[in-house]
């Protein structure tokens, strides 16, 4: 989402506190977009390092096995939510920016973004947690 293009960085000191967007819903979407974006970015940096271990197969497999741990599975569910929310909200931003007027009820679209993100995370999360829940993978 970034900042509205016309607004230079120094102006946004007050804007970060007040509402740049009309109403709190857009402001929360803005904040959630930033938070999920930063989280995914941080994971990306970590993920580049763990995949680079593929040059040493034994070490790669040893480190990679950690992703099956129940805590990291929970983390992966969180990552899924961040990815889906950031994607759908990003799509909403693209629609707002490129097709002015296409979205008539922005609050309802926002609610749809959140609901679909939660549903997708629940469905994907069940698949991710299933090996643990059914007892095939411990810890």
């Amino acid at each position, binding site marked *: 989402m*970034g*900042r*509205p*293009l*016309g607004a230079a*960085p120094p102006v*946004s*000191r007050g804007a*970060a506190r007040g509402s740049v967007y009309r109403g709190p819903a857009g402001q929360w979407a803005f904040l959630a977009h*930033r938070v999920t*974006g*930063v989280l*995914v*970015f941080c994971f*990306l*940096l970590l993920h*580049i*390092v763990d*995949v*680079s271990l*593929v*040059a040493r*197969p034994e070490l*790669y*497999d040893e480190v*990679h*096995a950690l*992703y*099956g741990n129940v805590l990291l*599975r929970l983390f*992966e569910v969180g*990552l*899924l939510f961040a*990815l*889906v929310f950031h*994607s759908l909200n*990003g*799509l909403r*931003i*693209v629609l707002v*920016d*490129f097709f*002015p007027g296409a979205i008539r009820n922005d609050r309802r679209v926002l609610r749809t973004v959140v609901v679909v993100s939660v549903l997708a995370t629940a469905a*994907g999360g069940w*698949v*991710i947690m299933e*090996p643990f829940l059914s007892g095939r*993978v411990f810890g």
Partner: protein
Amino acid sequence: MTVTEAPPAPARRRAGAEAWSWLFMRVSGLLLLFLALLHFAITHIVNDVVDTDYSFVARRWDNPLWRVFDWALLALALGHGLNGVRWIVDDYVRSPRARAATKAAVYTLAGGLFALGTLTIVTFEGV
């Protein structure tokens, strides 16, 4: 211009580096929607994460198209994320010196990891 006129479209007002950065975020974002979600689906939903071990990677990267896919994902995600972090640093890091230092650190880290990721994909020799 009358006062009742709607404000001009932001993109038209100032077509500089920031406008390109704005456009890049939208275009890379749309591409990443498919690349990142597909990548996640393959490695966490279709396959269990435990099964995406070394032999899985070796089989997958046997096909150069998957290397292109993964490299595109790497480059676009890093670029998109880095630009987002740049916006955030501009918004919250007030002192010019701290801002420059923060950006230098983030750019160095991301640049180094981009090189590492690229080397990983390009130099990998399977099984």
